[in-house]
């Protein structure tokens, strides 16, 4: 930790990790809908609206490294995390039917993929958004001093 370029570099690596997560999430969601043919429900679309821009916006903060990247990436990831958590609660049944936003088409409560008995698409989404948010906050902490 004696190289002065280090704090900058580690912040860069954190944002790069965010971009990796966002890209895997975006391609993964496309794999589910376009390759496997699972139609995305409305809430999934809202989460995509938050995830896809991250794939393009984060590199803008990587080249050259911009410590203000948090300012334009965190709103997306936090909003995405909110929607994903809402989606999870909906699937789990904690949120009553009456405020369910999906009226027609594919019900958001329908669970299409379950891995290892508990990993579902909204869970992956929530974890990705929360992890991206956490890493962005960490980036801010590291690069602001």
């Amino acid at each position: 930790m004696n190289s002065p370029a280090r704090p900058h570099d580690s912040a860069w690596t954190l944002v790069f990790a965010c971009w990796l997560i966002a890209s895997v999430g975006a391609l993964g969601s496309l794999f589910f809908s376009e390759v496997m043919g699972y139609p995305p429900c409305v809430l999934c679309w809202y989460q995509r609206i938050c995830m896809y821009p991250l794939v393009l916006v984060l590199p803008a903060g990587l080249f050259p490294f911009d410590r203000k990247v948090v300012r334009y990436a965190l709103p997306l990831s936090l909003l995405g995390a909110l929607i994903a958590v809402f989606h999870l609660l909906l699937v789990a049944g904690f949120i009553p039917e009456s405020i369910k936003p999906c009226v027609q088409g594919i019900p958001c409560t329908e669970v299409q993929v379950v891995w290892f008995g508990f990993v579902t698409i909204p869970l992956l989404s929530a974890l990705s958004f929360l992890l991206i948010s956490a890493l962005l906050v960490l980036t801010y902490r590291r690069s602001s001093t």
Partner: protein
Amino acid sequence: MTRKAPKVQQKQPKAKQQEPKAKQAQWFIFAAVFLLLAFIAGALVYKNQKSNEAAEAYQRDKSTFVRAHSPALGNPGAKVEIVEFFDPACETCKEFAPLVKKLMADNPDRIRLVLRYAPFHTGSDYVVRILEAAKRQGKFWETLDAVFASQSSWAPNHRPQPQLVLNYIGRVGLDSARLSQDMNAPDIETIIQQDLADAKTLNVTMTPEYFVNGKPLPSFGADQLRDLVQNTLATAYR
């Protein structure tokens, strides 16, 4: 720790910065290419696996592909069987109907066509009821032709108004009193539910969906359908 590093020191190695930056760009490009390739490879492997699975399932047990109630056309002993899931209100299904007929005409007695219902549009099930009732009068295929021919009139802009269909199938010569009675037969509802359940099992989410001896189209298109049929014909009638 690093936080307390004096400011002067931070500016020092300007020349050295170039190297990690190039490395960073390399990492980024490597990751991007890797992710894209992984996606494409995954898609290819998945499609191939699904196609093989479907063909194997078909060889083992055709029942999800062909039900006893399913309307069929062509030689029952044909070695190539096209199973088509269709929606009477679907434009592409209408466009593809003559294509399939032409394939059959070009290869007489070698292709059999089985139709399955996938009434995904709202109101389409009403049209399916008409078709099934017409089948009981032995006029399924004539009625289907009339339904497709008048599709733009009763389903403008993907908004089917199925009640209008009856106005356009007059020339088929159906007994309309019997038709409207048969349309409400409970076993027609059973047929629709069975077909929808099979569509779900076979992962049919769009219409038309074709299975040629159990194999789905690698990707959707007229050419792909023709190629798949021709390849299957070539192996079946070697």
